[in-house]
C-alpha cells in the first residue's frame, strides 16, 4: 500500500532539520549588539525604582513621599500599598512592593526611593516550615499556615508491605532556590496617549500584552509588547508582568515619559519567584525480587505566601500499592513561580535517592533495579533502552558497589536517574512567510526567543523547506505586531510554532513554483527546492537559482500563512542521566567530573540549540545539587544571601564534561526540550556521591557540612 505523503508534513529526507546550525544571533549577543530590555533606551526616558518591605510581614502605617518628591530629578512618585486601605496595607514577604518613584537617572531614582519614608508596624511572621507544621508559628494566613491536600491512595498498602522483604523509612528534602536570571525582571514602558509600548523581559509577549491591557483597563489593541532578546526566565517570566511591570506602566503614564524599571539582584532574589521546597517522609518496601511493593509518603513544601508546593511522587516508577498525603506550607516569603520543569526536580530527587537505597537492600545494580520497576517501554517511555545504552556508553560496568574502597580521601562514584516531561504544544500559533523578488525570505511569528534559540529554529525549519541555508532566512519574532502566539513555558514553544512555520514555508514555495514552472515548461508539482535552486525533481540541471526564480515574483511579494496542525508535533520526552563525581571525604567537597545525557525530543529540529538546552539543563541542576540555597535568617525571616556571592552558582571550572546523546524520533514530530534535561542531574549527582562515600545524603544542596555530617552519621 503506497502511503500518501502529506507535503506539509515533515520531510522524510530533511536538508537542514536536525543538523548543527550555529545560533543565528550568536554574533549579535557576543558583540553586545543584541538589545535586551536592559539595553533599551528611549528619548526622555526616566528610571523607575521600587520601595520594598524589609520585613517579611508588616502593616504599612504611613508612606511619606514629601522628601522624595523634592529630590533632584524626581518626576513622579506612586504609593502601591496604601496605608489608608485597611483591606490591603499588609506586606506579606520581604521584598513586597510598597511605593515607587521615577527620576531622570537611575542614581536619582535609587536615592529618591530611599528618601520615601515608610513606617511599618512589624507583625509576627512565619518563615520556618517546621514551626508552621508543628503549629508553633504565628497564625498568619487566613484558613491556616498549612493546607492539606486530598490524600491519594492506590492498591493495598498493608498487602504491599506484607509482600516486602525489606523496608526503609527515610526523609528526603530539596531546598528553595530562586531563578536567578542573568537579566533581571524589568520593563521599559512608553505611552502615546492611550497606547502603550512595553519592552519587557518576558517569556510571553502576547501574554504580557493581555496582562498589561487587563490590568490597566485599556484595549489589548492599544498595547504593543517587544522582547527581542531576554536573559533567562526559567519560568519566572511566564506569568504576569509582575508588580514591577504594572508599576513601570503607571509611572510612565503619570510622568508622561518613557520609564525603564529593571530590578536589581537583591530584588530579583526576593520578589520574582522561586522553586518551592519539597520534603518527603517515605516508608517503602521492596520484595526479594526487587519489585517495589509499597510506598507510603507524607510530603510537604513551601511555595511562599499562600502558594502551592506540589510535586510528583513517586516519580515514574510503578508502585502498585501507594499512599501519599501532601501539605502546602504557607510562609512569609515571595510566592513560588514555575521553575524549569516545575515539581519534577523535587519529585525526581525524593524518589531516586530512595531507589538506590532500596536497590542496595536487595543487592541489585541501580540500572537493573530501575528497569525492573519502570512502566512498559513506549515511544514516550524509553527509559529501559536509554538506561542500557547510557550505561554502556558511560562505563557503568566499572561502577563499584556503594562505597569506594580505594584508599585515600578522594572517593569516586557514579549515579543514574531518569525523568519525563511533556513538552507538547499546540496552536493557535500562526506563522507568516514572505518571499520577495530580491530573493529575501521573512518568516514572521509572534513568538519569542527566551534564550533557547527560537530564532535559529525558525530559520532552520524555513530554510529546510525552501532548500536554502538558514542564514538566507530572516526570522522576525519578539513583537506582538507579528501576531498571536503562545507564551514560552512548559517546553511547548518548539512543538507549538514549528508546524505553522513549516506549513507557511511550504505554501510559499508552492506559490513560487507556480511562478517558475511556466519558464521551465513543467508542472509546478514537478519542481522541488534544494541546494539553493528550484529545479525539476531528480534533475537538478533543469532549473534555476533561487535568485533567478525569485525574479519572477514581481513587485508584490509572495505571502503565505501557516498554523499548527495535528500530526506534526507530539508530547512527552524520556531522558536518562549518568553522573560521576569525586568526593573528598575529609573536606566534604564534591567535584562533578562527568555527566552523560540521553534524551529524546521527538524530531530533532535544531541539533546545536537542542544540545545547548541539555548543557544548560545539566548546569542548572548541578547548581541545584551543589550550590543554590535561599538562606533566610531563622529569626528575622530575612534573606541573608540575596546576591551572587553567597547564593552560589557554578563557575566554568565547577562544570564537568557533559556528553549529550540526542535520540531522534522523527516519526513523533516536534517535542520541546527546554525543561527535561534539568530534572534529574541533581539526583544522579547525589547518587554518585552516595556511591562514592557509602552513605546517603538525603537533602540538598550537597554542602561540605552535609557531606561530612552524613559521613559522621554513617560511620556511627
Amino acid at each position, binding site marked *: 500500500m503506497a502511503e500518501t505523503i502529506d507535503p506539509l508534513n515533515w520531510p522524510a529526507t530533511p536538508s537542514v532539520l536536525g543538523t548543527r546550525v550555529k545560533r543565528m544571533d550568536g554574533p549579535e549577543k557576543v558583540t553586545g549588539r543584541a538589545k535586551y530590555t536592559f539595553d533599551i533606551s528611549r528619548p526622555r526616558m526616566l528610571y523607575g525604582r521600587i520601595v520594598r518591605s524589609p520585613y517579611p510581614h508588616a502593616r504599612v502605617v504611613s508612606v511619606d513621599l514629601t522628601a522624595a518628591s523634592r529630590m533632584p530629578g524626581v518626576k513622579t512618585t506612586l504609593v502601591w500599598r496604601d496605608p489608608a486601605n485597611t483591606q490591603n496595607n499588609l506586606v506579606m514577604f520581604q521584598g513586597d512592593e510598597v511605593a515607587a518613584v521615577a527620576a531622570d537617572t537611575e542614581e536619582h531614582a535609587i536615592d529618591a526611593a530611599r528618601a520615601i519614608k515608610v513606617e511599618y508596624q512589624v507583625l509576627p511572621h512565619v518563615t520556618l516550615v517546621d514551626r508552621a507544621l508543628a503549629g508553633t508559628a504565628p497564625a498568619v494566613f487566613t484558613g491556616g499556615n498549612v493546607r492539606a491536600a486530598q490524600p*491519594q491512595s492506590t492498591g493495598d498498602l498493608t498487602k504491599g508491605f506484607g509482600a516486602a522483604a525489606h523496608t526503609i523509612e527515610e526523609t528526603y528534602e530539596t531546598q528553595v532556590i530562586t531563578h536567578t536570571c542573568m537579566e533581571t525582571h524589568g520593563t521599559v514602558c512608553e505611552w502615546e496617549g492611550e497606547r502603550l509600548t512595553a519592552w519587557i523581559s518576558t517569556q510571553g509577549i502576547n501574554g504580557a500584552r493581555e496582562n498589561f491591557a487587563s490590568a490597566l483597563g485599556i484595549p489589548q489593541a492599544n498595547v504593543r509588547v517587544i522582547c527581542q532578546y531576554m536573559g533567562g526566565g526559567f519560568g519566572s517570566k511566564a506569568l504576569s508582568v509582575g508588580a514591577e511591570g504594572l508599576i513601570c506602566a503607571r509611572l510612565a503614564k503619570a510622568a508622561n515619559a518613557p520609564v525603564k524599571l529593571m530590578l536589581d539582584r537583591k530584588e530579583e532574589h526576593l520578589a520574582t519567584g522561586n522553586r518551592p521546597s519539597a520534603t518527603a517522609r517515605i516508608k517503602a518496601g521492596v520484595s526479594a525480587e526487587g519489585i517495589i511493593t509499597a510506598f507510603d509518603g507524607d510530603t510537604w513544601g513551601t511555595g*511562599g505566601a499562600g502558594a502551592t508546593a506540589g510535586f510528583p511522587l*513517586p516519580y515514574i516508577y510503578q508502585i502498585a500499592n501507594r499512599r501519599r498525603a501532601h501539605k502546602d506550607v504557607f510562609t512569609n516569603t515571595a510566592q513560588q513561580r514555575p521553575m524549569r520543569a516545575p515539581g519534577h526536580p523535587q519529585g525526581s530527587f525524593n524518589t531516586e535517592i530512595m531507589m538506590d537505597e532500596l536497590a542496595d537492600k536487595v543487592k541489585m545494580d541501580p540500572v537493573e533495579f530501575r528497569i525492573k520497576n519502570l512502566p512498559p517501554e513506549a515511544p514516550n517511555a524509553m527509559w529501559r533502552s536509554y538506561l542500557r545504552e547510557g550505561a554502556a556508553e558511560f562505563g557503568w560496568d566499572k561502577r563499584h558497589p556503594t562505597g569506594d574502597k580505594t584508599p585515600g580521601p578522594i572517593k569516586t562514584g557514579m549515579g543514574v536517574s531518569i525523568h519525563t516531561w511533556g513538552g507538547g504544544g499546540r496552536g493557535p500559533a500562526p506563522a507568516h512567510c514572505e518571499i520577495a523578488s530580491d530573493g529575501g525570505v521573512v518568516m514572521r511569528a509572534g513568538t519569542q526567543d527566551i534564550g533557547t534559540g527560537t530564532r535559529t529554529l525558525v530559520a532552520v525549519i524555513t530554510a529546510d523547506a525552501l532548500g536554502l541555508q538558514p542564514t538566507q532566512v530572516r526570522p522576525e519574532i519578539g513583537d506582538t505586531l507579528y501576531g498571536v502566539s503562545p507564551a514560552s513555558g512548559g517546553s511547548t514553544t518548539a512543538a*507549538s510554532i514549528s508546524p505553522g512555520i513549516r506549513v507557511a514555508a511550504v505554501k510559499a514555495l508552492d506559490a513560487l513554483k507556480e511562478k517558475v514552472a511556466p519558464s521551465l515548461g513543467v508542472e509546478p508539482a514537478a519542481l522541488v527546492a534544494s541546494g539553493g535552486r528550484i529545479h525539476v525533481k531528480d534533475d537538478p540541471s533543469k532549473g534555476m537559482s533561487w535568485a533567478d526564480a525569485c525574479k519572477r515574483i514581481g513587485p508584490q511579494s509572495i505571502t503565505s500563512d501557516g498554523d499548527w496542525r495535528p500530526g506534526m508535533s507530539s508530547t512527552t520526552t524520556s531522558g536518562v542521566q549518568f553522573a560521576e563525581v569525586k568526593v573528598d571525604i575529609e573536606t566534604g567537597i564534591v567535584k562533578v567530573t562527568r555527566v552523560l545525557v540521553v534524551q529524546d525530543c521527538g524530531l530533532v529540529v535544531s541539533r546545536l540549540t537542542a544540545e545547548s538546552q541539555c548543557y544548560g539543563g545539566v548546569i542548572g541542576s548541578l547548581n541545584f545539587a551543589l550550590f543554590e540555597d535561599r538562606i533566610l535568617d531563622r529569626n528575622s525571616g530575612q534573606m541573608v544571601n540575596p546576591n551572587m556571592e553567597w547564593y552560589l552558582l557554578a563557575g566554568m571550572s565547577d562544570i564537568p564534561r557533559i556528553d549529550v546523546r540526542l535520540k531522534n524520533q522523527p516519526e513523533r514530530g516536534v517535542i520541546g526540550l527546554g525543561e527535561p534535561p534539568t530534572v534529574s542531574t541533581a539526583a544522579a549527582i547525589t547518587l554518585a556521591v552516595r556511591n562514592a562515600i557509602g552513605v546517603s545524603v538525603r537533602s540538598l544542596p550537597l554542602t561540605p557540612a552535609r557531606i561530612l555530617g552524613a559521613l559522621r552519621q554513617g560511620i556511627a
Partner: protein
Amino acid sequence: MLSLTSPKIHVGVHCLKLRTKSMYIHAVVDPDEATFYDAYDNSAFWCVSTQTGFGPDGQPVRPDLCHGERGCCRF
C-alpha cells in the same frame, strides 16, 4: 461548566481575574502521564488586576480562594 484553557479555572465558578500559566501556554496533555505519577498541584496563580499573587484585598489568589466570597471577585 465551560472550561477555560486552564483545567483548574472555570468560567462562572472562578473570578474572571484569576490567571494561571496554562491559560497562556497550550500544553498538550499526555494521557500516559497519569501512569508516571499521580496528580499534584503546583500551579502559580495571579490576579490580573494586581499582577501579583495577591488580590486587591491583599489576600493570596488561588482557585479555592477566588470563587465568589471575596468582594473583589468578578464574573
